[in-house]
């Protein structure tokens, strides 16, 4: 009996050793709770799917270590430290909000661990960094795309901008939008501000609507946009509401209701884009697994995982330094959201314009870089 037990024990010990030696740990720094919890959860859905479809690389199992950054800058940095120091991950996927990636990025940079953000669009996220990459387009392009679409397609001539003062994403996007919109000949009637967690925007809207704009540009996140749209419509605003990729979450429609009907936003992905053969694969697998429509954040996280896996494959090693070099040399990678060629950490991709119609997000066009 004792002999039998010791054999069993030996097998258990041996197999755990083999398995732990045979896994590659990848850290995930996502906002699973807090203000933009929907973003973290939508992204995690896409990431899990990618992991299920392609669970191995170099003959080893990939292990995802998810930690919640609570939609908070400080927590995002703490999570990056914990992933690197305690979990000894080989690479990190995250964060979502630009401000959080800006806080966590320097930690990955110092530790020489590559980090791939799925959805942080602010240009500063990768600027001057050797270890931070992303799979989405950047805000100078997104702002330009929104301005072009507003001016040329919607015929909007006067816009009031309402932005979030503590989010780098919002400030950057607003500036790039304004720059292009003015260059096109449009007029910015005023700029107003709010902070995350605000629920009452009546004072800002009162001032903004007094300037009689054709459209409001709100480059923020869905919790505030949905409440702001409600209040704007209640105050009798009939013009367009335009937003960035921070608007896309089911909560926008659930909370915004009728007020967000006709809201336009720029984003990264739509099944109609058919950017590469991976797009169809992703859409099919996603709808089969989750029985719901795909979203941009899920698709981007899906791509972030595949890009990282591809880099590890090309590096032929799980050494963080080699993974980083392979990421930097990514050329023509076929992702669900488009063909990705990394240049100074950033890809160049098309922007999709979507619209809320009858309580659904529908495709409304695209803008090429």
């Amino acid at each position: 009996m004792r002999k039998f037990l010791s054999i069993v024990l030996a097998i258990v010990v041996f197999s755990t050793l083999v398995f732990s030696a045979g896994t590659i740990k990848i850290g995930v720094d996502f906002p699973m709770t807090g203000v933009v919890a929907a973003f973290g959860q939508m992204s995690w859905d896409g990431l899990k799917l990618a992991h299920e479809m392609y669970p191995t690389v170099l003959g080893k199992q990939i292990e995802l270590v998810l930690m919640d950054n609570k939609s908070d800058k400080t927590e995002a940095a703490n999570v990056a430290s914990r992933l690197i120091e305690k979990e000894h991950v080989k690479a990190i996927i995250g964060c979502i909000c630009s401000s959080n990636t800006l806080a966590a990025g320097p930690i990955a940079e110092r530790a020489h661990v590559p980090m791939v953000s799925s959805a942080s669009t602010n240009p500063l996220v990768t600027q001057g960094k050797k270890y931070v990459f992303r799979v989405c387009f950047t805000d100078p392009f997104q702002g330009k795309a929104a301005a072009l679409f507003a001016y040329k397609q919607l015929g909007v001539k006067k816009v009031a901008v309402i932005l979030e003062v503590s989010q780098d994403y919002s400030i950057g996007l607003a500036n790039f939008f304004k720059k292009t919109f003015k260059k096109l000949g449009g007029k910015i009637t005023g700029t107003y501000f709010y902070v995350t967690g605000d629920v009452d925007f009546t004072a800002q809207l009162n001032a903004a609507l007094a300037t009689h704009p054709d459209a409001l540009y709100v480059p923020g996140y869905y919790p505030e946009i949905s409440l702001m749209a409600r209040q704007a419509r209640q105050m009798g605003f009939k013009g367009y509401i335009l937003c960035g990729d921070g608007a896309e979450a089911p909560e926008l429609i659930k909370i915004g209701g009728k007020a967000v009907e006709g809201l336009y936003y720029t984003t990264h992905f739509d099944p109609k884009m058919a950017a590469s053969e991976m797009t169809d694969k992703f859409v099919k697998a996603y709808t089969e697994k989750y029985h719901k429509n795909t979203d941009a954040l899920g698709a981007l996280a899906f791509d972030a995982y595949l890009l990282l896996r591809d880099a590890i494959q090309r590096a032929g090693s799980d050494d963080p330094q080699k993974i980083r070099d392979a990421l930097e040399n990514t050329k023509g990678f076929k992702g669900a959201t488009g063909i990705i060629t990394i240049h100074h950490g950033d890809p160049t991709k098309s922007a999709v314009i979507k619209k809320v119609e009858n309580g659904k997000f529908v495709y409304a066009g695209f803008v090429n870089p």
Partner: protein
Amino acid sequence: MNIQLFLQNLANGVSLGSVYALIAIGYTLIYGILRLINFAHGDIFMLATYFAFYGISLLFLPWYVSFTLTVIAIALVGFLIDRIAYKPLRNAPRISALITAIAVSLFLENFAIVVFGGRPKPFPVLPELNKMSLIGGIRIQNLTFVIPIVAILSLLLLIWILFKTKIGMAMRALSRDIDTTKLMGVDADKIIGFTFALGSGLAAIGGIMYAMKYPSIYPLMGIMVGLKAFIAAVIGGIGNVLGAALGGFFLGVMEIMIVALFPSLSGFRDVFTFSIFIIFLIVKPTGIMGESMEEKV
């Protein structure tokens, strides 16, 4: 700013202020009796919005049933929190109770994240209250009339309980001196439990009003609102229910007016709120209504 815009802003301010007032009253009530700053008050407020939400969306109760049950259930929750968390510390130093209050607050927040999930939920809005009325060129949501009325009725009810009933007399006596009141044959724990139930019930009413006005509920929504209500209570003179109501109205109107007058500073609204709080603490720590420290509750 023309007169019409000013009135529009004023209406919005009063409506925001009456929500703060409702929550501040409960805050100040508990402080007045126990000298305990109940940091969990904002989270009880959050819990109420979830109870009302699930009452309507999960149990398919009509709104008035769901809202009434919520207020009763939350009053019970308040009573239980006192029994479990604060009662064992009745004779401990005040700082222990304060630390416990913070712990209760953190517990409720994380409990809500686990049970209700971190993503915001859409609070059902009653179509009647959501309609806009046009009065003299100002657009006012019907709810904007309802909230101040509910706040004032709650305040009157509370004042009646405090000054016209026997239990209110016991509460006022406890706020002066717990030990002496006990000697008079008052069951202090029962009265304190009732105070918590009453304060939490008011937080529940405030929560329902708030959620109808800003129909997005999430587990951490109580933190900022709780802080604002606390500031309102201090501005009004903490421990004084009428002061808390006035403080709430003052804070709401001020928050809207600051943004209206200085649109370029609108991202820093909370800076003004907390600055005013600090100025009050320096210049008039007893608040608007706190004429003398003896006049608590």
